[in-house]
């Protein structure tokens, strides 16, 4: 899912780094956001909605819409689309299997 050749742009990707998505080890690049790295690895469902457990993924990718929130290194509700990926980061989906009391 990564563009190798582009007629206008060239992508100078940083070093390869490891990170964990719901415990699974994945590879991303320094300088990209968590959301971009997940998407490049084929992960499109980031979390679930609180009540109806509908799948949630990237919508705006510029930190405005809250669709891509995940728990990063234990911190909940991180906007993964504008948070840079760091080596060894642990990224967890939110609200999966969690029932809320009305």
């Amino acid at each position, binding site marked *: *899912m*990564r*563009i190798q*050749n*582009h*007629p*206008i*742009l060239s*992508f100078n*990707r940083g070093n390869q780094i490891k990170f964990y998505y719901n415990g699974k080890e994945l590879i991303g690049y320094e300088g*990209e*956001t968590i959301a*971009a790295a997940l*998407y*490049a690895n084929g992960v*499109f*469902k*980031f979390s679930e*909605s609180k009540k109806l457990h*509908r*799948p*949630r*993924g*990237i*919508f*705006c*990718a*510029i*930190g*405005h*819409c809250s*669709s891509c929130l995940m728990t990063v290194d234990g911190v909940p509700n991180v906007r993964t*689309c*504008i948070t*840079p990926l760091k080596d060894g980061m642990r990224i967890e989906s939110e609200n999966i299997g969690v029932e809320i009391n009305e």
Partner: protein
Amino acid sequence: MSKIQNLELLVVGGGPAGLSAALAAANYGIKVSLSEEREFLGGQLIKQTHRFFGSEKEYAGTRGIDILKKLIDEVNKNNNIEVLLSSRVLGIYEDNIVTILNDHKMKKYYPQSIIFATGASEKFLAFENNDLPGIFGAGAVQTLMNVYGVLPATNVLMIGSGNIGLIVSYQLLQAGVKVAAIVEAAPKIGGYSVHASKLRRLGVPILTSHTIKKAIGKEKVEGAVICELDSNWNEVKGTEQLIKCDAICLSVGLTPLVDLLKQRKVKTTYVSELGGYVPLRDENMETSIKNLFVAGDVSGIEEATAAMIEGQIAGLSVAKRIGKNSKDEIEERIEEAKNELELLRSGPVGKKIRKGLSKLGLNHGKNYNEKFSEEALDISHLMKTGVPSEENLKNKLPSEEKVFDKGPIAISECFQRFPCDPCVKSCLFNAISENANINNIPYVDFEKCTGCGICVSKCPGLAMFVIHKNFSETTSVVIMPYEFLPRPHKGEIVKVFDREGKYLCDGKVIRILDGKFQDKTAAVSIEIPKEYYLQARNFKVEEGNHG
């Protein structure tokens, strides 16, 4: 307890408006702090791979990403600008104290003046299943593919045919993604016709008077149901069709990000033409609160060029207010910028902005020439389909067929009035004229034109072609712009298409201009059977022909 830091000017937002504002003020000695939420500057410019329209003075003909490089370079060289990256402005209080979060620490600042250049966010659209992963804002798709080099999907349905929808569709094709169709609820295309025409040549359908009913898929988008709309925007029964796609891209408009302004109780009002709630402001970009200015999309949705000029006006206004000298010179520059902005907005495409601004009580346009406010040609068919009518084409072709006998000549397929001039400025022989107004349609003087093909690479709308009708007894040559991979080789046989993307014939590549000057918009000469010289407007290089 943390100390409060005094500032002369705080600019909030490092996009085109914020960068221009910071530079304009700093150039007159104002100490500027430029606060940007992300870890890099640029805002939405960072993903604009297309050449900009507008006037050459504001970088028309240059790609957005290259304009950004120039602006950042100037900012970095300027000792009066302190850039605060990864710095989120959290609050602004009644005493004008601003709190900024950086690296989990909150700092307090007391700026003498503030320019808000916070930009806009994308509008959403109501339809069934609109929350599925795979439904993106158009900006998100641009971010993924142009900033991070990540493909958003393989086959995208675009909703909305404004300039963003059209430009992003073209960028998707450049990245190797298929665009299933562009769906537009209005009976006509919203963006510039040249963008629409590029897509039609590439075979992308543009469905006006259509809308999306629902997205299909459980965990992710697998398709969409679209339907036709009647003249009252009601669904036409029985017109539903299923479109297969793995992503749906929404480009249904932007709305100003006025949250911080509202927090400070800056007066705002709803102006639909400007995208939603916008701050009340004067012609110098100052809001209802003294020393609080705005610039760019936060003050009303417009193009990036306008955002840059508004940034200049806001920055210069601050310099005039708190600077100690050069006031007359600053005043002169403010007037210049205002005139430029007025010129940009003076054509038919600026009508909506002008209407919106008048609702804010702004007297922009006192000098507007009504002559330039209406289209010069009947482009109704073009704006419905993206394909020019026979009448439109006739208007831009030589009046006599024998003109083609003199050799290669440039043909401009630009029929709509909007502010743009790179074709005029690029011609070494002064053969292209807009009759003194940037909003006018350019015409080629076939006497002066040598058919050199420079304009083919310089037109941001890819609407310039060179035709050499009598290349040989039986063949013509058409020089076409090309911004795709793979690049063609001399001698290669390529497939040639018409303005609707229909296959016409095979053609032979006889010359390729693809150097630094062309800047990735190659001008490729294709030899074709003579009967097609007025139709051949696109070609495709087959993957795998390259050994």
